[in-house]
């Protein structure tokens, strides 16, 4: 008796997905994000608090966005953290922001790496004034990555290493895998 084997769906490339999703002008997105940051700076006064709130907003987005990501990308379980990082950089960023990141600076255990963004739609038209020097303007992005990874059982710690608004030559986001939460589901992937 033969068993029915489902052909594994082929993961789709970020470009192909981005070409197929509904898109909006990046300037609307950029300026809306700017309005959010400005509101937070007015309300919370301390840049540290703004950093925290942006991270929280990103986390809220990440835990929702992962469902859409999995549904549209056909990505199945990644074999290791290396593959996970590549998928975020090449498929995730492309699918939502229309840009890709590169992955570098791996540690020897393969649990810590950097995502490098040269193009970042969040920062068009932005210049940090002197009063905002401690601000991580794009902190919402780190929250999104952290939230999304938590939904696929990976606890991570995310740190900004480089920031073009602070005079660096790229945006560098360090992603460190803290632990993989064991699955507690009573069923397997293919059931």
């Amino acid at each position: 008796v033969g068993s029915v084997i489902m052909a594994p769906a082929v993961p789709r490339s970020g470009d192909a997905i981005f070409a197929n999703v509904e898109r909006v002008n990046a300037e609307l997105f950029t300026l809306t994000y700017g309005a959010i940051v400005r509101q937070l700076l007015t309300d919370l006064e301390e840049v540290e608090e703004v950093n925290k709130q942006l991270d929280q907003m990103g986390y809220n987005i990440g835990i929702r966005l992962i469902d859409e990501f999995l549904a549209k990308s056909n990505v199945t379980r990644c074999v290791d953290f290396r593959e996970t990082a590549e998928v975020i950089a090449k498929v995730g960023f492309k699918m939502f922001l229309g840009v890709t990141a590169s992955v570098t600076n791996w540690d020897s255990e393969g649990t810590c790496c950097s995502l490098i963004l040269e193009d970042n739609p969040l920062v068009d038209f932005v210049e940090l004034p002197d009063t905002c020097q401690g601000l991580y303007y794009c902190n919402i992005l780190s929250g999104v990555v952290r939230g999304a990874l938590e939904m696929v059982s990976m606890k991570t710690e995310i740190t900004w290493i480089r920031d073009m608004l602070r005079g660096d030559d790229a945006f560098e986001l360090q992603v460190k895998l803290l632990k993989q939460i064991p699955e507690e589901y009573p069923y397997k992937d293919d059931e």
Partner: protein
Amino acid sequence: MIGAGKMKQYSNVLDKPLSKGRQEVSFSGFAYLFSELVQYNQTQVDNIGELERRLEDAGYAVGVRVLELLCHREKGNRRETRLLGILSFVHSTVWKVLFGKVADSLEKGTEHEDEYMISEKELLVNRFISVPKDMGSFNCGAFVAGIVRGVLDNAGFPAVVTAHFVPVDGQQRPRTTILIKFAEEVLRREARLG
């Protein structure tokens, strides 16, 4: 510029060449962001009026910048000085850049000389929003009303701008109308210009 490879370093944002504005992000990415804007502001207010005012403020900040950007890029550094000119700038140029299409309609109010309406069957920011019953007439379009007010105000056409749902026969979802009520001085100037 997105997708242009290695980005050149500029010491000042004003030294950077103005992008052509054709880059895109996913609509859902924008929707997640907008939803966070609404949810955050909900935590800061006690009533619907205040929530709409805060969304309008956020939109106003966008409108100010959109006016500046589009006057540079699309209008050769000129801005409109006449009422119908600035209204058609909002309805066509601004709408097209921000929402990818010209607004469905631009009408003059029949009862009041100082009122104009821009209507949209399905306003972008309302696409994924369902307003709970207890929030009455709340309309996320307040954000877009703020954008419109930001553009008009900074072009020298102060106005009160509000967003309203208007039911449409045979349609499940209402359309959104952005109601623009110009300040007296604007109409006086317009009359003087003839």
